[in-house]
């Protein structure tokens, strides 16, 4: 079971959070056209390894967090609040 270290609330069980998927895909500009949005909505790296993802802390502070988690070991390396935006991949590589 995941224990996600919320920057605000501290370590909490995964059931307090709502998963919102890949945080590395950024929404294209409104006029970017269907192709760009198809990529945004459907295409995923789905890495077998480190994954930057959104978790909404619905059962706690209700902040949207980005979490860097390993999809095999589930180890969590970094967590941040969305206000810092979905940080560029360079920053979050472990």
């Amino acid at each position, binding site marked *: *079971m*995941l224990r996600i270290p919320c920057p605000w609330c501290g370590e909490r*069980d*995964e*059931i307090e959070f709502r*998963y919102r*998927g*890949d945080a590395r895909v950024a929404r294209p500009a409104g006029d970017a056209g*269907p*192709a760009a949005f*198809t*990529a945004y*909505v*459907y*295409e*995923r*790296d*789905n*890495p*077998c390894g480190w*994954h930057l*993802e959104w978790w909404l802390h619905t059962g706690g502070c209700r902040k949207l967090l980005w979490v860097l*988690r390993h*999809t*095999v*070991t*589930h180890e969590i390396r970094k967590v941040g609040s969305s206000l810092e935006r979905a940080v560029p991949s360079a920053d979050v590589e472990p």
Partner: protein
Amino acid sequence: MTPQAPSRPHSSSRERASSGRYSAWRLLKEGLGGQRGWSSAWRKAAPRPRYRVVIVGGGGHGLATAYYLAAQFGITDVAVLERGPIGLGNVGRNTTIIRSNYFQPQNVRFYDYSLKLWEGLEERLNFNAMVSQRGTLNLFHSEAQRDLFTRRANMMRLLGVDAEAVSRERLREIVPLVELDNGRYPVLGGFLQRRGGTVRHDAVAWGYARAASAAGVDVVEQCEVTGICRDGARVTGVLTTRGAVAADTVCLAVAGHSSRLAAMAGLKLPIESHVLQAFVTESIKPVLDVVLTYGAGHFYVSQSDKGGLVYGGAIDGYNSYGQRGALPMTEEVAAAAMTVMPGLARLKVLRQWGGVMDMSMDGSPIISKTPLPGLILNGGWCYGGFKAIPAGGMATAHLIAHGAAHPLAAHLDLERFALGRTVDERGVGPFPYAH
């Protein structure tokens, strides 16, 4: 591109001798000889430098594709490359359910074709996979759910697929363990597909492997694909831990890991990998004769021939390649079980494991050409892969052999996402973790 390598006409007959034909008589004969006369069910092949078709993944779909290529389309110059031993991925980690009750008509047709192939499987493979059409029974708990199931059942009946409504009274007889008036979400009724049921999952992999091998296919174990070779856009073969293998067509049948393999070819897929938990209890004398699904929570269950209750729930809900589940879903599934079948209270759960699912963005599978010529994808099975093995194998083999989609799988192409033709069974939308 070189023309196809010559297939090996004699190989099949030679191989067929390998494990011999299975029958009661043979069993008796070998019994008198101390069971010493048996030999390997499938030939432990080493990879050759080139094949007409290389299938990556020795799971249900890969082995079935290889078998139908050889047995149905006469293409025997085929290798199945498996990273470890065959059949230990999702084909050996599921809850063994087969059924064809789907909402989208295209899916009903496809999965019912699969059911028909299951029905003739033993004779065809000469391997008893214990196809057991004991019926799948879906309970419903609200009028809205009744309407949905009615719509689905009517669609199935229009397409000539069996489906029937089951009253509360009949439920009492069919599933005495079910508590119809379980405080929270009483059971209003059910829908039954008699032709649904279960299959001994391991036997499916072994049976297809044996039959494919006998037909001349090389089943290569302990051979991990480490790269995909391209000549410009065209895919020309794979690199493996046992050397490079060239092929006219490379087919990925590695559900759970499709994204990883596709990435080797520079492709991004509309797929996320998620873990689905399954469980088995201690074995007891028969208490359940159908496959049962609870409609108000995550719980579906059947009793194996060995006596254990095999049951499962929903995916854990976040990307995962770890073949094990998290505790909250384990508890939730058990709570659902206890709510609909309080009589299970004292039954003990033995093992819990997880399978890594290819969760596609619309909940439907992908059997398709890819933007790269020479690369075929069989994946995105979500948690419906097992029941689809025969049809998935047949459709993929058809696509490889004819270069065109099998008529019953045409809707499963990769373009549907860009074109807005998604096949969303439950209308969940592009959120694999919510499917």
